[in-house]
């Protein structure tokens, strides 16, 4: 699947974002997140999908949305030069849309471009950049994984 005119849009709080559909592997209904002590910021644990362990990356701290979650977007990104798969909790329905990629006006952090679709405009997330920003080892203390 490498159709550059297709995108997946999803809400994080009040704001809707988009990812290139080639990055999105699937959508999951809410599933159990397994937590264990670790030191990585923004990783809240893992979920298991067909025997595969997938880290759950919570973007709330960076993009500022509420705790509710309706789906997990399973997406592929590059992290430290390696291709990784992550689960991103999102707060509402996701849509597969067709659209046109445009340049973002000015440099907006974590936004690679804008998507024009159905008369709306969505920030097209730079997933590699946001993941690199969010997922960092905490110094000194383990992350309290028992939220």
């Amino acid at each position, binding site marked *: 699947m490498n159709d550059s005119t297709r995108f997946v849009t999803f809400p994080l709080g009040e704001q809707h974002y988009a990812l290139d559909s080639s990055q999105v592997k699937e959508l999951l209904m809410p599933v159990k997140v397994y937590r*264990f002590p670790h030191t990585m910021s923004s990783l809240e644990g893992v979920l298991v999908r067909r025997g595969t362990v997938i880290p759950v990356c919570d973007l709330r701290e960076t993009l500022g949305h509420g705790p509710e979650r309706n789906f997990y977007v399973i997406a592929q990104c590059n992290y430290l030069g390696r291709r990784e798969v992550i689960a991103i909790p999102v707060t509402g329905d996701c849509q597969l849309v067709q659209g046109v990629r445009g340049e973002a006006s000015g440099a907006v952090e974590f936004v690679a471009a804008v998507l024009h679709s159905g008369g709306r405009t969505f920030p097209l997330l730079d997933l590699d950049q946001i993941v690199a920003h969010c997922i960092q080892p*905490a110094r000194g203390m383990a992350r309290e994984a028992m939220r």
Partner: protein
Amino acid sequence: MAVKELERRSLSIARPLGPAALTAGPVILFTAGGMRFAVAADEVQEVRGGDERTTMRKLKGTELIDFALQVGLGEGILERLLVLKPGECALEVTDVERMASIPKVVSLPGMFRGMERQWYRGLLLLENEVVPLVRTEFWRKAAGQGAGHE
């Protein structure tokens, strides 16, 4: 709903993120700081009661490690000692639950790249549960460097 469309064309994640870290033999499941962990049974010398702490430390020279504290779960209830082979280090834990055999073990996903890669050998997929498998060599080394709480 658009989600349905996505589900129809959804791509499976074709291969695991990493190969099986090891083919584990029996493991001992234990709790610490309110969470469950596992340690390979053949790396444990014995299990002792927490009331033997002083004996173990002073008479046998065993270094004690409050496991929950070390992994950031805060000071735990310490009622059992998991003495690691060859006996110079023991993990202080809340309880030893049971043994489990031949669980599936997978590597930690690559995004976990902090101390957890030292703490754990991998993750057990066990009865609809994911349990970190303790890397005993790290804890023995930590004990040798005085990481114990006492």
